[in-house]
């Protein structure tokens, strides 16, 4: 990388970091898929009302009997009129507390418009029953937080999943995902909503954050927590990448066919999570002339990917293929078939007959042969197995 490219890269990173910090005070913290964006064009101050002696049910009494998340448990004029004399204010009287239209509906002039700007208050995409919670003596602040310093309540006063799970722990209340989340016809969670895609974010109480480059880091979780993954994902989701035939561009960018050897050497186990070495890899390598054991009627290969033959095979030094093979046999078997190794390592071979087994193999060969002796017989005769003490 030349100096100019380095400067451009550093400047881009610095700009992105700076912009991120500058915008850090805005934006969202609640999932738009669960709580769609709202427009609440009123002036309201919870702190003042609470200080004035109101409690939650003064304005939100309907919540006590609400059984659906889509219920709008918001006060209307009758609730406000418990304290604000709207009718008197409309007649031009000066009242305290103030009750003119524009006191709560900023900018609204009834002589110009018939109705104030409308609320946009989409239903949340969860199941929720206020009544059940109220009946169980769950305080409003348990879910909505302390309101004494809140002015206008927004989506930020709606509970996050971590809050729900403080009680929904599997013993006090159900911890099943579908207790709160909507299901699709398949019985798995519904993930696509008009307001966004339900995707675990950072702070997810199960540590399931599907953040940047999750396609490269989900393996350990998927291998040990299949039941959790299956709450949202079916087999088709896994196969979109793991079927070895689709070419996920996010996973294999750039000229990946040319570049993949460097990546494969650094983390060859990852390749095997989608590609079978002895069919996908070895087959393609034989077709392109990299593999050694291709059918002789194919055009001859003329590429050399190993060090000099003397160093690679004959010299017992640091560049010997035995060391490379012991470190990463996957590299070998993504190009070679068993015959390559049998040529030298087998008893039946005419060449070196070098023992490829690890230390201590002799003491376990009898048990191995008892379980499956077919691979033994690829290199050894029955009588040799007896001689070696493996029968």
């Amino acid at each position, binding site marked *: 990388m030349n100096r100019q490219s380095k400067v451009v890269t550093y400047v881009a990173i610095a700009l992105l970091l700076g912009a991120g910090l500058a915008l850090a005070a805005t934006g969202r913290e609640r999932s738009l898929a669960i709580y769609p964006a709202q427009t609440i064009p009123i002036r309201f101050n919870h702190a003042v009302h609470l200080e004035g002696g109101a409690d939650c049910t003064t304005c939100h009494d309907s919540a006590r009997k609400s059984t659906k998340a889509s219920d709008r448990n918001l006060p209307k004029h009758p609730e406000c009129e418990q304290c604000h004399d709207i009718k008197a204010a409309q007649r031009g009287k000066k009242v305290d507390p103030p009750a003119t239209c524009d006191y709560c509906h900023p900018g609204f002039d009834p002589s110009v418009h018939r109705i104030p700007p409308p609320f946009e208050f989409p239903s949340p995409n969860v199941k929720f029953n206020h009544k059940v919670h109220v009946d169980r003596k769950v305080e409003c602040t348990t879910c909505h937080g302390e309101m004494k310093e809140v002015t206008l309540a927004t989506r930020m006063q709606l509970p996050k999943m971590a809050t729900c799970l403080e009680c929904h722990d599997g013993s006090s209340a159900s911890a099943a995902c579908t207790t709160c989340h909507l299901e699709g016809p398949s019985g798995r969670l519904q993930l696509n909503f008009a307001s966004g895609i339900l995707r675990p974010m950072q*702070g997810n109480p199960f540590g399931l954050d599907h953040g940047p480059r999750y396609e490269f880091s989900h393996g350990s979780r*998927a291998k040990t927590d299949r039941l959790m993954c299956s709450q949202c994902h079916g087999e088709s989701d896994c196969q979109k990448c793991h079927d070895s035939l689709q070419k996920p561009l996010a996973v294999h960018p750039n000229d990946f066919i040319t570049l993949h050897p460097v990546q494969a050497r650094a983390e060859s186990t990852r390749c095997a999570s989608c590609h079978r070495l002895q069919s996908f890899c*070895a087959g393609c390598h034989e077709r392109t002339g990299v593999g050694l054991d291709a059918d002789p009627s194919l055009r001859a290969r003329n590429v050399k990917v190993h060090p000099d033959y003397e160093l690679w095979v004959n010299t017992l030094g640091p560049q010997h293929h035995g060391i490379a093979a012991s470190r990463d046999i996957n590299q070998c078997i993504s190009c070679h078939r068993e015959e390559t190794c049998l040529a030298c390592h087998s008893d039946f071979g005419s060449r070196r007959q070098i023992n490829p087994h690890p230390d201590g193999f002799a003491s376990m060969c009898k048990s191995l042969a008892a379980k499956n002796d077919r691979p033994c017989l690829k290199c050894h005769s029955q009588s040799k197995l007896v001689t070696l003490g493996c029968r």
Partner: protein
Amino acid sequence: MTGTRGVRTASLAAAIWAVTSPSKAPASAFLVDARTEAQAYQIRAYRDSDPDHPTLLPRRRIVQYLGVNGYELITGEDLAFETSLRVFADLGLPRGEAAKIDGVRAEQADLMYAYARFRTGPIEAQLGRQTYVDIIDYMAFDGLRLRYLHKIGIGVEAYGGLWVKGGMLLGSSVYQPDGTRESDKRRISLGVQGANPVLDEIEPVYGAKLLVENIKGFSGAVGYRKALLSGKSDLERTTVEARYGRGRGLNVTAGMDYDLIITQVAQVRGLVRWDQAKYALSVEALRTSPVLSAESIWYYFATAPRDELRLRADYTPVGPFRYYVQGLGSQYHTNINSTLGLASALRDPALPSSINAGGSAGAAYREASFRSALDVSYRKGYGGRQLWVDLTGGYTSGDDRYTLDGRFSLANVVDGFNPSLQGTFYGAQVWVSYLFSHSARGSLAIEENINDFTRSDFKVFFLFDLRTML
């Protein structure tokens, strides 16, 4: 007469009730999920060629997936079926050439999965071709899986069937045991000495797990799996999986795979993650070994595991940006029989290091219709050196009808094994998609890569997704 009139009256009342009474409507839902993917690009071959006159092999591949799923087939019962059939053809690969290479097919139809599922209370059953993922591997089998999970969180799972293999009718080799050819039919037909007819035999596989699910935040499983090929062991392993998490904060997952044939630990994975609202820290440690069939000679070679450690921190301030930084280190261990002369080479100061270390950092932006991400990764050590810079950006129209995504990537690599593979590789992708209706989307992706090695490489992808509920 009175009796007859009474019967008539009762019949009429029954008929009126049957016609007018509220009946339970069937709730069945059927989902058709189809994807067509066409790929057109070229692969550089190393046969009868040199860098200035490369042999380019065309890849003109068309892959068609057809998934048909039915849910709640009996009203009120969780009875469902899910299927996926994959048909593909590589029009750039002559059939005659494919027939000479094991594992390469010019055309094929694979039934990826097709099973019926039934769930009632604590019991779940799945019958048919299905995949199974756990700490050992990703496998597919034709058979039955049963799970019983009591409400107190203790359960058992058992499964058994035939391992899906490439040589079977509508079978794919993707999830079959590795380390041998997927089939030896070709070599047997040619009379090649040493061809193994056993590879094409059916392979029974069965296993069981004892489960613990969310008891005071703890979940886990102890499992066993065995596969038999022509009456002899092909795989026999036991596993332990454990997870702990009680809401935001500490989450731990771990797993171990113990090979009962060669009696050694094959794989270990552990992930510890600490989540708070604005940041997360995670440590992941892995010990991995190739999962090979006991039919393969390589299974018995002196090979060693690979260890990897990943440390990652994520920071998500309120706002559209999030950031992460990650450190990576890995080591291939070496295992040489001490009785061989080669063992002394392990003490040679010139022995190449088997350690690879590096890290990555990135930022992602998502707000309203726009998204973007920048990732920078660097690794050096065993295998070579590589620096990757990836910049992506995308836009989705407000009505979700159009999407436009782009990606620029820069890779500066030095391959530790192949000296001719080095330099800076530039790549760019543009992906455009259009939503024809609420259930059909078409996408076109083009990719151009420029580098000193292949000079120019152009790829075109076309995708059509249809997902509709009947």
